[in-house]
């Protein structure tokens, strides 16, 4: 099997615009080493994703978008994955940057499976600077939250295990929390508010299934 990555990057509101931009950033750095099938914007729909999964059987899935305990959404909140088609995502390495999906969908995806599911049991949240909302990658506030999240994919693509990717991401979150605690209030009045959201992401991030799974 070639090193195939399937990515979903819907973009139809502030949240998904940011997730999409940051996902694009990490993928740009790795394009030459891997085959990336990028379902961006309106292409991030169930029909497209399912067809590709069945045909090409990518090992790594990087899913960005909204979600709940049982579903991961694509473009305009259309369901891409749910308990109905969870069989399609067994035996794969999945990083789902979609809230709450680790609670039920993720657990089902790794049941009787050699794969793993890195995701969240709480809503994945982040502050943004509205002055930067049209240029997400220049938003230093959002970067505090999205860089550690991107680190998961970076590490997986470097050949590290799911567990190692999770740990690296956590180290980054801890580093950012420490930075927030060292900031002067006059320079960053939102630091404590940011800290508590970053803490929520830290607590909510989980690795289910085979934590030693490798993308190789």
């Amino acid at each position, binding site marked *: 099997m070639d090193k195939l990555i399937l990515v979903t990057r819907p973009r139809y509101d*502030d949240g998904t615009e940011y997730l999409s931009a940051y996902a694009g950033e990490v993928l740009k750095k790795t394009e030459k080493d891997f085959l990336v099938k990028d379902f961006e914007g309106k292409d991030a729909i169930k029909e497209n994703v399912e067809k590709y999964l069945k045909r090409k059987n990518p090992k790594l899935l990087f899913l960005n978008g909204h979600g709940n305990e049982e579903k991961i959404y694509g473009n305009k909140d259309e369901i891409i994955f749910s308990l109905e088609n969870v069989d399609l995502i067994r035996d794969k390495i999945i990083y789902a940057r979609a809230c709450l999906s680790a609670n039920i969908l993720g657990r089902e995806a790794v049941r009787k499976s050699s794969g793993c599911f890195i995701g969240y049991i709480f809503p994945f*949240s982040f*502050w*943004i600077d509205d002055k930067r909302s049209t240029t997400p990658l220049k938003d230093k506030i959002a970067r505090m939250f999205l860089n550690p999240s991107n680190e998961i994919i970076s590490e997986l693509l470097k050949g590290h295990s799911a567990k190692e990717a999770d740990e690296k991401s956590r180290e980054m979150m801890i580093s950012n929390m420490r930075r927030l605690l060292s900031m002067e209030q006059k320079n960053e009045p939102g630091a404590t508010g940011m800290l508590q959201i970053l803490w929520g992401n830290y*607590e909510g991030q989980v690795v289910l299934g085979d934590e030693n799974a490798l993308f190789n």
Partner: protein
Amino acid sequence: MTNENEKTSEDVKELVIQRLGVMPSNYKLSIGSKGTFTKNQLINHVIADDKIGNQVVKMQMNFIKALTTGKLIETLNKNG
């Protein structure tokens, strides 16, 4: 303090509202699938005691718990 089916106590709401109040007005919070909100919108949701408001309260009280149990500082002291 509250579960999803109980109304949030007025004291908790008042606390959360004050805590939200210190955020800069140009910051917005993206909360999962629920959307992206300014601090004033968040405060309105807390007052309304709706799903989004309850989620915000939960996140805030969870953080306070991490402070009072020492879990936050223990985590930040990891890895030197």
